[in-house]
């Protein structure tokens, strides 16, 4: 058997899972879709004493309108979200990003919350949450709290989720139905983690950008909001935007590093280009409409 020994417990409710987490004092791991955790267990890079399965809990499933936006239960399967009509209508860029998360087979088990809780810097879902301004509801035996995606990510695989906390749901605020989606990803093969990627949305009214949410993935230790670019875009007339200058601002906020897949210089160079091209095409499409 590949993983080190552990006790497997199928949680019967969120409360049950939280009680088990509290009792385990850091020795437990939550199991959602298992598409990241199982390989880590097989490689013995993760050796929990207790594995608490939450993937099947009905309380953690589903996508529903909430506070004007949409609430996604943490254990909603990626494959289910991909074909959800509410999401397709309200947040099309989310669906585009999700289609790039792994493969058909991994999305059949992988969950939205598992990807967000993991905090892989090159993953699509964390950056999408940051870009769209999502917030996370966390639960523990100590109570519930809400945290903004902007404050969730501390470093590679490091989040503000405490060892005794469970991510219950992710809330995405409303974006106008005609918001311009921005998505670009460069990966070696479809389904691989991104070498460089960006995701976001632009709300446009009367030919001007009213609201911009854009984040990088694979461009630093965490997903990174392109804050300077967002600020420069808001208020501008869409036929007057200096796309190259905005791309420079976006790169200024990124913090890519060298790794076995690509150098920081490559990421910056490719990132700048996909940002400029992505923004230009998105604006052109809107101007032509």
């Amino acid at each position: 058997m590949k993983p080190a020994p552990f006790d497997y417990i199928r949680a019967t409710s969120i409360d049950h899972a939280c009680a088990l987490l509290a009792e385990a004092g850091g020795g437990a791991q939550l199991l959602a879709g298992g598409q990241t955790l199982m390989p880590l267990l097989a490689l013995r890079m993760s050796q929990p004493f207790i594995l608490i399965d939450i993937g099947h809990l009905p309380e953690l499933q589903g996508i529903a309108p909430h506070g004007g936006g949409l609430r996604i239960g943490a254990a909603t399967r990626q494959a289910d979200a991909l074909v959800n009509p509410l999401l397709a209508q309200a947040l099309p860029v989310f669906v585009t990003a999700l289609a790039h998360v792994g493969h058909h087979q991994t999305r059949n088990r992988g969950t939205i919350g598992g990807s967000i809780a993991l905090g892989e810097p090159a993953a699509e879902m964390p950056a999408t949450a940051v870009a769209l301004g999502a917030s996370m509801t966390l639960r523990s035996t100590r109570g519930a709290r809400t945290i903004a995606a902007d404050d969730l990510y501390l470093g590679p695989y490091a989040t503000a989720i405490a060892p005794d906390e469970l991510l219950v749901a992710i809330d995405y605020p409303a974006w106008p139905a005609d918001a311009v989606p921005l998505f670009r990803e460069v990966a070696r093969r479809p389904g691989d983690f991104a070498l460089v990627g960006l995701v976001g949305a632009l709300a446009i009214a009367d030919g001007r950008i009213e609201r911009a949410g854009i984040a990088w993935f694979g461009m630093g230790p965490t997903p990174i909001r392109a804050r300077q670019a967002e600020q420069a875009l808001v208020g501008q007339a869409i036929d007057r935007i200096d796309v190259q200058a905005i791309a420079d601002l976006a790169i200024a906020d990124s913090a890519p590093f060298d790794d076995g897949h690509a150098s920081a210089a490559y990421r910056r160079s490719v990132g700048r280009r996909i940002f400029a091209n992505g923004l230009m095409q998105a604006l052109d499409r809107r101007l032509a409409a």
Partner: protein
Amino acid sequence: MSEHRISMTVNGQQHRGLVDGRLMLSDWLREAAGYTGVHVGCEQGVCGACTVIVDGRAVRSCLMLAVQADGCSLTTVEGLAAADGTLHPVQQALKDNHGLQCGFCTPGIVMTLAALRADGARPDEAAMTEAMSGHLCRCTGYQGIRRAIRQLAAEDGTP
């Protein structure tokens, strides 16, 4: 270390067992239940050889614990051909188009395509090709697999 009583249906047959919490579904299917058509390549989610159908969905059986399949209905490659040996259309299409050589990756590919076409669903070529990103094949260069997919789409009238 926990032990669990499990029961599941595999290819229409009821199976029961007592498993360690850490036993992978792929290992249980091969070693306890005897379904050696479930191939294990990487055992870490990358290659897709271990793909089986669990409650209608193609999943990697090396990324699921056996205990998680308790109560589920599974299909492995052994469960596809008819009793008289007539191949499933996906198997036939791969055979017709040299979609396999050593056959190591093949059961996984067959299960993904069979799941996509279950219950009369008829995915188009693009959907089937997209799902192939989840499978690695070291032999065929993929072109035979792509031809098999095109044949399936043509037979289905979904180009």
